């Protein structure tokens, strides 16, 4: 009789090896059995990490392409550099539904109030990526018409340099933002948490 281990095409049951003759598992009480069932289906963690994990993996950008960087932003939505692997392929048209504003392109002085208004219309939590040299610092254009850096009007979380940044750079920026989100503290309500009051024994 051939040794079953010589045949590479073994089924999983055969690969597991021979079953022991005696059942070696200790019988459990009813309580333990229920606890084990529950533990197999629940992950124990803090609320913060879950919320941060959810926020980081489903960032919905606002479609805010201004200039040349917008084309590279469209390219990350394209087939070669796929941003939907990061959960961010839904570019929302309305700021009310978005949580990431990628300022892609140069911000002119006529556009600056519009940009601020859009930022204010976005609900919390919101993040801003300054994509490209022009939105980080004014870029090639240092003159009367261009705002020298979008951080003059909105707080920026990640700066992605380049003119335009390659789509891989922007994806790296989005991943850095994901890191930032995963390590941030969350606010569970509109007001900051009260400090725990010290109980002084009288």
């Amino acid at each position: 009789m051939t040794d079953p281990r010589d045949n590479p095409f073994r089924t999983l049951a055969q690969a597991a090896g021979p079953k022991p003759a005696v059942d070696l598992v200790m019988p459990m009480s009813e309580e333990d059995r229920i606890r084990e069932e529950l533990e197999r289906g629940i992950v124990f963690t803090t609320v913060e990490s879950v919320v941060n994990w959810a926020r980081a993996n489903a960032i919905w950008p606002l479609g805010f392409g201004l200039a040349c960087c917008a084309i590279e932003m469209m390219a990350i939505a394209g087939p070669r550099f796929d941003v939907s692997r990061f959960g961010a392929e839904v570019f929302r048209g309305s700021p009310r539904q978005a949580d990431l504003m990628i300022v892609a392109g140069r911000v002119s002085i006529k556009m600056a109030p519009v940009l601020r208004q859009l930022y204010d219309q976005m609900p919390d939590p919101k993040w801003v990526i300054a994509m490209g040299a022009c939105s980080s610092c004014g870029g090639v254009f240092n003159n009367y018409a261009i705002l020298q850096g979008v951080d003059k009007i909105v707080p920026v979380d990640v700066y992605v340099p380049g003119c335009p940044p390659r789509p891989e750079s922007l994806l790296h920026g989005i991943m850095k933002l994901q890191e930032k989100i995963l390590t941030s503290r969350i606010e569970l309500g509109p007001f900051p948490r009260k400090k725990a009051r010290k109980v002084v024994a009288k």
Partner: protein
Amino acid sequence: MTLNMGPQHPSTHGVLRVALELDGENVVACKPIIGYLHTGMEKQAEYKTYTQSIPQTDRMDYISPMSNNLALCLSAEKLLGVRVPERVEAIRVLLTELTRISSHCVWLGTHAIDIGALTVFWYCFREREKVLSIYDMVSGARMTASYFRVGGLAMDLPAGFLDRCEKFVDEMPAHVDEYEKLLTKNPIWIARTRGVAPLSAADAVAWGVTGPALRGSGVRWDLRKDEPYSGYETYDFDIPLGSRGDAYDRFQVRVAEMRESTKIAKQAIQRVRKMGESGEYRLRDFKYVLPPREEVKTSMEALIHHFKIVAHGFFPPVGEAYHAVEAPKGELGFYFVSDGSSRPWRMKIRSPSFVNLQALPVMVEGKLIADVIAAIGSIDIVLGEIDR
């Protein structure tokens, strides 16, 4: 009712604001408001040399950057009164036609996505990525190439470049067939674009419209044939014309132009192969053009010329010149006024989208609001060019 299609809008191809006066769904009046991307390029050019303005032009019509570079270089060369060698002309034609293909790909993808046909976007961007790799190979940057210089090219072609281009050009007609299969006989596409945003030939000329929008209205005017530059008169290609001047005709004109560009690019590749895969890539007039590196290291004269051109820029004669090219969007021209110094006294950019957008009210007044989106897409505008 007054409706504002604001500067931030998924379908406006940039920061265009359109103030619409509506009566139900009918557009009574339409006023495009621009300036949200004004960059002060014309003012900034007065503080830079001609060569330093070339990267600025990349950021103008950012979908077809090499066309803008070509327009500036040709205009400066007209001012200087020089003509570049034939090999350079052939390479310029090759890269400009590839630019035209990639620009029409983006146009088709975004126009289709506005109207609702989402699939085309991914197909078109797949082809565009191939052209961007070609750009990357020749200049180092995917989009903002700045590869042309006044008097030639920045550097010679890399090895294997022509094979890469040939491979792309051979497979492109099959891809254009794919786009046509998706859209041309599609009843939804026809319903959304046929008869929509009509522009008569007389109106188009009166409003200064050029490019595929003009040819879609049946007017036979293409600068590559009628005011040829860079050796275009020696290439064999046709000009597609529309008849009704609606969005569907403009779509067909552009798709046919993609095919013609493939033809021209193939001829250009053969020409460059005949003249040598590596060879001269710059004019040998060292008063205006940088001398080759080997000569800079051996000849004193070349060293001095190199120093002068790099430190100050070249000094064109006092005068002015205007030269236009057929960019993918229309007639793109640069007007230079020179006062003898290395910085232009005035650089005026005649951008096609700026003029074509003026015809938008003519196209949509009296029509439905959904047609406004189709109209904006079919004119093919780029805000970087409009606002400069």
